[in-house]
């Protein structure tokens, strides 16, 4: 384990930025967001960014290819963008876990080469959560906020930042900044881990469990009468989907440019009326069905296909951002019954 004084953090950032693009969470209007580090940019103390870190591997909109038309001829142009090395610094445990969930989707056959390429180029430096929020429930999904995964795990104390490499990529990055870091024991880190675990127990949502959900529960919940009420006031906006670190649905569309066509993909939301729109219409005709899709996917369908792994990481973003305050916790409690209360 290495440590670096917080006062030297900027130097470390500068060193990292020499070889790769470095993104750190930065405070701004509307909350924290990952921004490209430059001289003078300060790291945010916020617990989490408004948007999740999935943008780095699965951006909201990316060009896949272009078709250039001249007269009646078409030429296909590959102008892939995801070729640069980059480092994301300060990813929280929940978001780190989300990459594992996304990997199962994008890296299983057929491999999504755009995603794969970004995963390969990116180094994740995670950061333990010193002050989890009332909306956090990562523990429900077996995530340890005190000990996040990632290529490097970091812990921040009043004075120092402790760094532990977990992968080869992490080692390499650590060695790049070895000149300003020093070896240390993990005492302070152990101390922080204990504190965090204690807080996690006290969080208001610590009682939410996944016991009632998982693979093989489709029949149990699909026709539950509870969906009617749960979904009845859903606006059908995409807020929950777009702030969610694990939502991975996208749409591929063509944009007619002046010279040809740009084929791009962009996030889609199962909450939208034109989600999976086909010639005959939308296969999920009502908002109830669309609403159900989102939660069934997270709690049942995904586990069905992924060895019981849930596709929710308990980051709590949807809890704070939903315009009508409807969220996965309410769904789990309603469907799961009293035990969850």
């Amino acid at each position, binding site marked *: 384990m290495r440590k670096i004084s917080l006062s030297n953090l900027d130097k470390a950032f500068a060193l990292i930025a020499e070889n790769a693009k470095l993104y750190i969470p930065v405070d701004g209007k509307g909350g924290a967001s990952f921004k490209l580090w430059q001289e003078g940019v300060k790291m945010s103390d916020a617990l989490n960014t408004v948007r999740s870190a999935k943008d780095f591997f699965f951006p909201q909109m990316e060009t896949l290819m272009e078709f250039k*038309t001249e*007269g*009646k001829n078409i030429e296909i142009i590959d102008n892939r963008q995801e070729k640069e090395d980059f480092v994301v610094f300060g990813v929280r445990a929940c978001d780190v876990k989300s990459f594992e969930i996304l990997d199962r989707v994008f890296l299983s056959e057929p491999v999504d080469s755009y995603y794969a390429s970004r995963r390969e180029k990116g180094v994740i430096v995670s950061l333990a959560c010193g002050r989890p929020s009332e909306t956090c429930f990562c523990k429900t999904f077996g995530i340890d906020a005190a000990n996040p995964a990632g290529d490097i795990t970091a812990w921040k104390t009043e004075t120092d930042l402790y760094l532990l490499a977990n992968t080869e990529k992490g080692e390499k990055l650590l060695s790049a900044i070895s000149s300003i870091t020093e070896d240390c024991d993990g005492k302070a880190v152990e101390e922080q881990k204990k504190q965090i675990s204690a807080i996690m127990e006290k969080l208001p949502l610590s009682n939410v469990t996944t016991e009632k959900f998982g693979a093989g529960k489709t029949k149990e919940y699909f026709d539950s009468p509870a969906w009617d009420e749960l979904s009845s006031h859903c606006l059908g906006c995409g807020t929950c989907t777009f702030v969610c670190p694990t939502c991975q649905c996208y749409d591929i569309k063509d944009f*007619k440019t*002046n010279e040809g066509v740009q084929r791009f993909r962009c996030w889609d939301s199962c909450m939208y009326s034109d989600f999976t729109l086909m010639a005959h219409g939308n296969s999920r*005709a*009502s908002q109830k*069905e669309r609403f159900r899709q989102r939660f069934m996917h997270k709690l049942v369908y995904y586990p069905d296909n992924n060895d019981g792994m849930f596709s929710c990481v308990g980051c709590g973003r949807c809890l704070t951002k939903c315009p009508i305050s409807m969220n996965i916790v309410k769904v789990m409690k309603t469907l799961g019954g009293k035990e969850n209360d």
Partner: protein
Amino acid sequence: MQRIGVFVCWCGSNIAGTVDVVKVAEALKSEPGVVHSANYQYMCSQAGQQLIKDAIKEHNLTGIVVCSCSPRMHEATFRKTAAAAGLNPYMVEIANIREQCSWIHKDMQEGTEKAIVLGRTAIAKVNLNAPLKPGESPVTKRALVIGGGIAGIQTALDIADAGFEVDIVEKKPTIGGKMAQLDKTFPTLDCAACILTPKMVDVAQHEKIRIFSYSEVEEVKGFVGNFDVKIRKKARYVKEDVCTGCGLCTEKCPMKKVPNDFNLGMDNKRAIYIPFAQAVPKIATIDADYCNMLKNGKCGVCAKVCTAKAIDYTQKDEFVEEKYGAIVAATGFNPISMDKFDEFAYSQSKDVITSLEFERLMNAAGPTAGKLLRPSDGVHPHKIVFVQCVGSRCASCAEKGKEYCSKICCMYTAKHAMLTRDKYPDTDVTVFYIDVRTPGKQFDEFYRRAAEEYGVHYIKGMVGKVSPEGNKLIVQGSDLIANKQLKIEADLVVLAAAIEPDKSARPLATMLTASMDTNDFFTEAHPKLRPVESPTAGIFLSGACQGPKDIPETVSQAGAAAAKVIGLLAKDKLTGNPCVAQSDELMCNGCSSCEKVCPYGAITYADKEFRGPNRTTLIRRVAQVNEAICQGCGCCTVACPSGAMDLKGFANKQIMAEVDAICK
């Protein structure tokens, strides 16, 4: 995918002079959808049209783009061509590479490049065109003529003679208009009344013609073939069907000081009056502003003397609603006000008069019974100065004059001068002119006769100032040929005032949705080729409401307007413009925005049943467009936030495709 044919016209050298038509045709060949591209000297010619027809058949074209002159010129032509070859006429788009390209650019490269873009734009649009079928509407076989002057009279007679019913609406108590006020008419010097009054009688006696005198158009709704018009019959306080026009009431009316508008206020009439002896209809009318009985209930003489019991002091304005297939505007003209021309002392001296006033002074039925006497003292004038172009051709004085030439003044001034010299050889007559314009049959001969045979002094120059001094008028003007400034002591000064459209024309145009120019003359559908039609279908123009005209011209235009009306009324059905608004009921949310902006009331709402998700049904309020009423302006399409309302032929997608093509 469309199969589009592109046809590039040279228009002789009009287009080919600045646009490389071969290159344009070649470049457009590779546009998406284009399967055939050709160029030809004159696409609008018989041979050119044949070229298009052949190509449509040979290449199975589903749409064509003609790169030629303005669509305002030949869109209809090429639509017919397409239709003749079995293609829906609305699959034709025109790229305007003449008026908006070759004629304004001098550089060949620039012109060619722009022509290609314009062609590409039209192709982009036609790619999204859909065949359209015009709707049909019935034609009401009755015409309305607004205005009962010589223009309206002639139009009405011609239409009626063809067997259609005609109504004339005249705001004055009698038809006849300005011509009834004239003395003689140039260039033949016939007496105006002698040639007009028989026509007035014809109108009165024609079984197909109804006259609404002392009436005005109140409201116009509907569209070509189907106008609904509300006519206000102003209360004249005399029962029209009872009055015999004997005139006893006017003789006995004690209210003698009513300015006589027929004589332009130069004498008085009674509060109950018949405008002139040959009035049609010959019915008395009470001037409510002066009648004591109507004002304060004291008098009632006319009712007492009327043997026919025609007087009705309680009469109210009445409204008549009638359907018409065509409407003719024949609202005529008026001389402009001379009040603002201080330099001519019109408002200072009674002896400065307008030509129309002079007309009345010379008229046997006028205030002086045809004797030329000065209005101020009734003395015969020995020195008369006529000033032409007063308020005409006046570019710098929009607030008092008119920029255009009033056209008739040169001729009537010559007439006045000639008549004066003829009747009173002892009178010296001088005419100040800027130019004398006499393009007309026998016109220049007439003017020369005034100068040569009658010794009228024509002075090239303008009067700068008229100042009354004692009982004389000092006319100061320049004689440009002698290079002298003249000061003439005149007894009478006659101003040839510019003429302007009647003030009622503009509100009428608004009701008719007919367009007007900045001078308030009605705009014709085409200045050369459709001079008697308004761009608004079903509205026709007759006489000076379209522009300054003399009598022969007015009468010929009146006849032409009648011919157009007859052509319309002879049809049983009209095919409409298929480029109308269309509501996508699945998208419409019934908010009523479109209905509020529709100027024609073409949009209504209905509750309709729709299939909801999962076998449910929903009832929704949705907009529906009456295609016969919609005129296709597209205002509703923008008012509609959901994009449910679109315009056929100018659809959102088509316009956006045009935008894209231009910006490419």
